[in-house]
């Protein structure tokens, strides 16, 4: 790893013992809390976060400072900050890695962010499967509290904060922020109708901000170095660094902190990052931002339809819209080489969304079931040409017609797989015997990289 790269979140990740308060503190940890509560007003912290241009790292990319400025502040009503550590989007494992590796970074971020928002009780909601991480965070909280960084009258500033970790129970939908709040209230994770938005009526019907683990973890650096310094990294509206969860057929899968704006080509092939595709194989397709975003064939991933180098930014990955582009999403970068079957993977994702639909809206509940069934049929050699159009039709009927974006998230992978890999679907239908042989993969006209 080259050392000149600015690391905002992971600079100290390799230091032995960094998960302990003592070592974290020795390497400059908690200075942002000191600076914020002793020398800044809450509004001044919000202002720095606004200037940083940092965008929500949970998937939607909404500017964090702007979200914070929407928080309602009625007199005498508590406000809450809830951190979204549900991380269940297939392909995404950066929050898991960050929380277990440098737990104090998130705790420090929660303190400065809660201070900025005027919250006196805050929660970190962590998916229940990560119970060992819940324990790591609870230990870190206890250490921070013992050192006076949490609890009553933090560092003598008069500011009080209690921080708790809440485990989920196993449900992808609880990553959706209003489902998460329902779950935190001890209910089923059914997304709420919006408006009202959480900024007005969130946890216990009080004004609430929900932010992703990685988003919150940027705030100590922003407080220490200023929003402008953060905004100086990256390109255009894609400021700062981003954690990318790289999985699939890469030489070096893992979690990487990249400055936004490097080329996709560099990210995949440079030894500094993924080191290329595993030996003897070639890149076929990538899902660049978690299972919900459109899949792209290698050629369109590396270069936009206009022939420009594709960059790791919100804008460049989305260039061309859904016709030829995709989204940065949560940064779940799933690389597939020529041994991967697109139909099988699309069926797998459809099964996932059907399984995870909360069932409140009929287009999502029924539509995801239909898509799974039809894809299963095609993958197992019983499909018809009409099925391909049926899939496109069902995906269109789900899109935009549901309470929460899970419906869209289920529709996009299917629609994009058909858009870019229609030949492969047709091959399964025309040559079922060949296509259902174990390990069989379409080797038709396909540009590999």
């Amino acid at each position, binding site marked *: 790893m080259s050392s000149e790269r600015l690391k905002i979140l992971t600079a100290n990740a390799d230091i032995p013992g960094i998960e302990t308060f003592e070592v974290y503190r020795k390497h400059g940890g908690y200075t942002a809390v000191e600076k914020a509560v002793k020398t800044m007003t809450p509004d001044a912290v919000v202002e720095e976060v606004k200037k940083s241009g940092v965008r929500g790292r949970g998937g939607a990319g909404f500017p964090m400072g702007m979200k914070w400025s929407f928080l309602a502040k009625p007199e005498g009503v508590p406000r809450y900050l809830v951190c979204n550590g549900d991380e269940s989007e297939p392909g*995404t494992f950066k929050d898991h890695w960050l929380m277990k590796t440098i737990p104090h970074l998130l705790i420090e971020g929660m303190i400065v962010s809660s201070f900025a928002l005027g919250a006196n009780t805050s929660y970190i909601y962590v998916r229940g499967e990560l119970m060992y991480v819940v324990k790591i965070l609870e230990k870190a909280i206890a250490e921070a509290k013992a050192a006076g960084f949490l609890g009553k009258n933090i560092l003598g500033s008069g500011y009080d904060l209690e921080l708790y970790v809440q485990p989920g129970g196993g449900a992808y939908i609880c990553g959706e922020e209003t489902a998460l709040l329902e779950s935190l209230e001890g209910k089923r994770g059914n997304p709420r109708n919006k408006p009202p938005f959480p900024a007005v009526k969130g946890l216990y019907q009080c004004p609430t901000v929900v932010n992703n683990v990685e988003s919150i973890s940027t705030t100590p650096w922003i407080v220490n170095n200023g929003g402008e310094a953060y905004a100086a990294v990256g390109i255009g509206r894609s400021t700062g660094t981003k954690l990318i969860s790289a999985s699939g057929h890469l030489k070096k899968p893992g979690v990487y902190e990249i400055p936004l704006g490097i080329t996709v080509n560099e990210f995949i092939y440079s030894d500094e990052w993924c080191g290329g595709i595993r030996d003897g194989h070639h890149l076929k397709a990538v899902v660049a931002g978690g*299972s919900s975003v459109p899949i792209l064939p290698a050629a369109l991933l590396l270069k936009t339809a206009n022939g420009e180098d594709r960059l790791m930014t919100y804008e460049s990955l989305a260039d061309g819209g859904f016709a030829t582009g995709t989204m940065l999403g949560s940064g779940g970068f799933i690389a597939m080489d020529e041994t991967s079957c697109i139909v099988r993977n699309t069926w797998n994702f459809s099964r996932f969304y059907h399984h995870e639909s909360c069932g409140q809206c009929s287009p999502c509940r029924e539509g995801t079931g239909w898509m799974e069934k039809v894809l299963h049929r095609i993958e197992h050699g019983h499909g018809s040409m009409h099925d391909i159009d049926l899939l496109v039709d069902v995906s269109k009927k789900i899109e935009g017609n549901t309470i929460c974006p899970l419906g869209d998230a289920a529709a996009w992978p299917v629609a994009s797989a058909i858009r870019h890999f229609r030949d492969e679907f047709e091959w399964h239908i025309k040559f079922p015997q060949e296509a259902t042989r174990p390990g069989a993969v379409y080797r038709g006209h396909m540009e590999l990289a």
Partner: protein
Amino acid sequence: MITEKPRIQFTPERLERAREILTHYPEGKQKSALLPLLHLIQEQEGWTSPEAMDYIADFLGIKPIEVYEVATFYTMYHLEPVGKHVIEYCRTGPCMIMGGEEVYAHLKKKIGADDGETSPDNLFTIKPVECLAACGWGPCFQIREKYYTHLTIEKVDEIIDELKK
């Protein structure tokens, strides 16, 4: 009057932990403790039985139905008895393209149980689950709180043989 001791109750240490969890929420919002308390009782009992759910309802002063509807919504609560070790393996795309299909097929054969089943010796229950947020370290499974990553057929053999001891 005969006061019957409930058939299920928290051990003293867990009772203390449960009481501490209740303090995490504002007055009157103790229902928020439901998910953590269900984890706690399942950790103790091995599964989330109807008696366990009734006990938690009683503990929180809510209706039993409020517990049932939550316990059935989330996938982590085992509503049937399970073997000593519950192996929850990730069946989602990224783990599958990394060789998950072969590895999990081997796992099931080795244990002698299919999805949702418990092995004849009652040692293992196999549950397929969705993405465990470990995609770059797949294929993977988890047993209770422990993650087992970068699985291969050889590694599965080692893990299972060790657990059988």
